[in-house]
């Protein structure tokens, strides 16, 4: 039993952090949206109805397309053993970890701006990994005997797939679809870059209303609508998650993979090569065009309005370091509280600390913009951007460290206490060394999240706090091929730094990425 005083001491910082940076701005948004805007006005706006409709159908279309196009690769890597399978599984994750601005710029580099297809293609590119991991994870463990039994009862291969395989995989497919739908429903950077003025999701519209048109009540009302939608989606998803496949049909992964033969071997080869090539093209074109158009040289040259593009790199790196430090300290305090089971605070924290993860980045940025002028005008300080990044990153630190902290048997901490260790020293000598590696992984996530964060930063970046993603976005908005080349080059740099950070982190990671 950890003394209540120690738990409250650890809880103070996360409570203050979440309370001031998350809950308080949320309340300000609610107040603004409810007090200054009639719901009738909102519905009367034809544009808003169009935006809502577009948000919905593009998310549905992106989800359907992603499931369809990811299916062959998912089938190949989960059912068959072939040279390069592990590599294929690792490579497919790369698009998922790329910042949205990089993905948007890559598709812009293909010459696909201002079109629905560009948006859908970018969404598929980004989310193939979700399907391969979520559905493939279950498919790889589906016992072949179940399918073979159906075959011996006279079912053709297609009927086996339709009547046995598909129904068993259903929970995983629905889970993957929900995640992809949520991601694409709240898509911001990609749509902002590729959609031009014609196509706008609710996220993008919040940004337009607040930053371009300065209609804050309208932006607030849209944020509220977005929160309601996202919360509903998450609730449905959580419900679904409880139902998983019957353990009866699951077998150890290694036993279900076969060597493909004959025509199957060809199908496997085509699935893998075609999908990976399609995923390879956008980043490859980005890098090629950045170099061919002289983008890298441009990074060192002053742009009349934006200044030297390369200056965004040290800004981003120092913000990422600061955000990571804050996120790790706050996240570890929160993990300490959550892992002390039995206290009511632990249950509350378990939910509250995850909220920023389920909130759209744009809402967080918007909230900072309208709320953080009290009690001091935090918006005028350089701390604003790192704090926003830390807020988004805290859930990653918590998720990385809580399982390990929970794995420490209570009697181990009690033994330390009986040997004279105060609660602080128990944390320092027992918890900290045991979760150090996991905390490092959490820190890595926080770092990567901060580097790529765009939704919140777009709202709150000032001329002296322009991060790499914001600089890329602004370069894309400036006229001239030179600026476009510079944007591509900077996107290449950001993609490379992110990939490097992920690879370094991967070496420290003992556990899997887990669920998204």
């Amino acid at each position: 039993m950890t003394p209540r005083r120690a738990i409250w001491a650890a809880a103070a910082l996360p409570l203050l952090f979440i309370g001031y940076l998350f809950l308080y701005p949320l309340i300000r948004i609610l107040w603004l949206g409810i007090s200054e805007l009639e719901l009738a006005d909102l519905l009367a706006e034809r544009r808003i109805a169009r935006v809502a409709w577009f948000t919905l159908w593009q998310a549905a279309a992106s989800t359907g397309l992603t499931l369809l196009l990811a299916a062959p690769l998912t089938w190949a890597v989960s059912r068959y053993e072939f040279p390069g399978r592990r590599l294929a599984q690792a490579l497919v994750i790369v698009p998922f970890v790329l910042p949205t601005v990089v993905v948007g710029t890559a598709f812009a580099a293909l010459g696909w701006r201002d079109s629905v297809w560009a948006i859908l293609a970018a969404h598929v590119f980004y989310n193939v990994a979700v399907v391969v991991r979520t559905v493939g994870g279950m498919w790889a463990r589906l016992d072949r005997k179940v399918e073979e039994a159906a075959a011996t009862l006279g079912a053709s291969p297609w009927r086996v797939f339709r009547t046995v395989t598909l129904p068993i995989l259903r929970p995983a497919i629905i889970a993957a679809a929900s995640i992809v739908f949520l991601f694409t429903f709240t898509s911001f950077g990609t749509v902002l870059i590729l959609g031009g003025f014609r196509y706008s999701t609710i996220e993008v519209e919040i940004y337009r209303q607040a930053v371009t048109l300065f209609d804050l009540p309208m932006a607030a009302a849209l944020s509220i609508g977005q929160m309601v939608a996202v919360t509903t989606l998450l609730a449905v998803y959580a419900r679904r998650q409880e139902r998983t496949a019957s353990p009866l049909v699951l077998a150890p992964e290694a036993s279900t993979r076969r060597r493909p033969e004959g025509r199957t071997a060809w199908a496997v080869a085509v699935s893998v090569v075609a999908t990976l090539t399609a995923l390879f093209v956008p980043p490859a074109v980005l890098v090629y065009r950045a170099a061919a158009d002289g983008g890298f040289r441009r990074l060192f040259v002053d742009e009349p309005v934006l200044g030297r593009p390369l200056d965004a790199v040290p800004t981003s790196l120092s913000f990422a370091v600061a955000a990571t430090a804050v996120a790790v300290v706050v996240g570890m305090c929160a993990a300490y509280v959550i892992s002390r089971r039995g206290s009511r605070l632990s249950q509350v924290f378990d939910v509250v600390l995850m909220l920023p993860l389920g909130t759209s980045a744009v809402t967080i940025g918007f909230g900072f913009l309208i709320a953080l002028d009290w009690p001091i005008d935090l918006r005028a300080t350089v701390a604003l951007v790192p704090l926003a990044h830390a807020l988004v990153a805290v859930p990653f630190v918590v998720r990385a460290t809580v399982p390990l902290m929970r794995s420490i048997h209570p009697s181990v901490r009690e033994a330390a206490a009986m040997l004279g260790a105060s609660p602080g020293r128990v944390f320092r000598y027992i918890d900290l060394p045991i979760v150090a590696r996991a905390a490092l992984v959490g820190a890595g996530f926080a770092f990567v999240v901060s580097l790529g964060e765009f939704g919140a930063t777009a709202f709150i970046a000032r001329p002296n706090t322009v991060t790499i993603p914001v600089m890329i976005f602004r370069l894309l908005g400036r006229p001239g091929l030179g600026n476009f080349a510079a944007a591509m080059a900077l996107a290449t740099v950001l993609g490379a730094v992110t990939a490097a950070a992920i690879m370094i982190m991967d070496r420290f990671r003992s556990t899997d990425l887990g669920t998204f």
Partner: protein
Amino acid sequence: MLTVDAVTVRFGELRAVDGASLEVGDGERVAILGPSGSGKSTLLRAIAGLEKLENGRILWDGVDLAGVPPHERRFGFMFQGYALFPHMTVGENVAFGLRMQGRDAAEIRSRVAQVLEWVGLAGFDHRTVDNLSGGEQQRVALARTLAPDPRLVMLDEPLGALDRALRERLIVEMTDLLARAGTTALYVTHDHDEAAFFAHRVALMRQGRIVQIGKMEELRRNPADDWVADFLG
């Protein structure tokens, strides 16, 4: 001297310990004996400060320990399952309590060597704890408990997880060690023979209450009620 005065510990509706009183004199070894679920481990944890008292007092040399957190009681506690620190070597485990007291490195080193020698694990300093045998783990836990020289040693089913032959050997070693050092000790067990061998006096516990205290022979000769007679055979 330890005084347990009418202590009650509650878990929700259940009174795990119900008005238990007990005295342990300096250098005395007392066993708390009872069937599983009788509250004996909870009583031990309450004395350690690991459970909140609903009622009653715990005193050391007449001083009430209410408000003294576990880490300031200078009591040693050996846990069921040992609770060794998985990320530390044998030597680091044993040294932990000494480090918490702020002893200097040379002193810690010689004390660790001495205590490990007592438990028959001389030279085990650098071994990791996860590839020790059950008996070795038990000895490390004992060494770790004794190293900081606590004023009271509490042992919670310290031999529970071991096989019969090993238990018979270790109870002799452990009793011998504590007797030679003149350590005040409380020993929780459900095993009559262990209790009889280890302790000067035995406290019998049932449903949270201490039903009888005395030397084992006395309890056998004059059981307080039918249940005691039955339990002791």
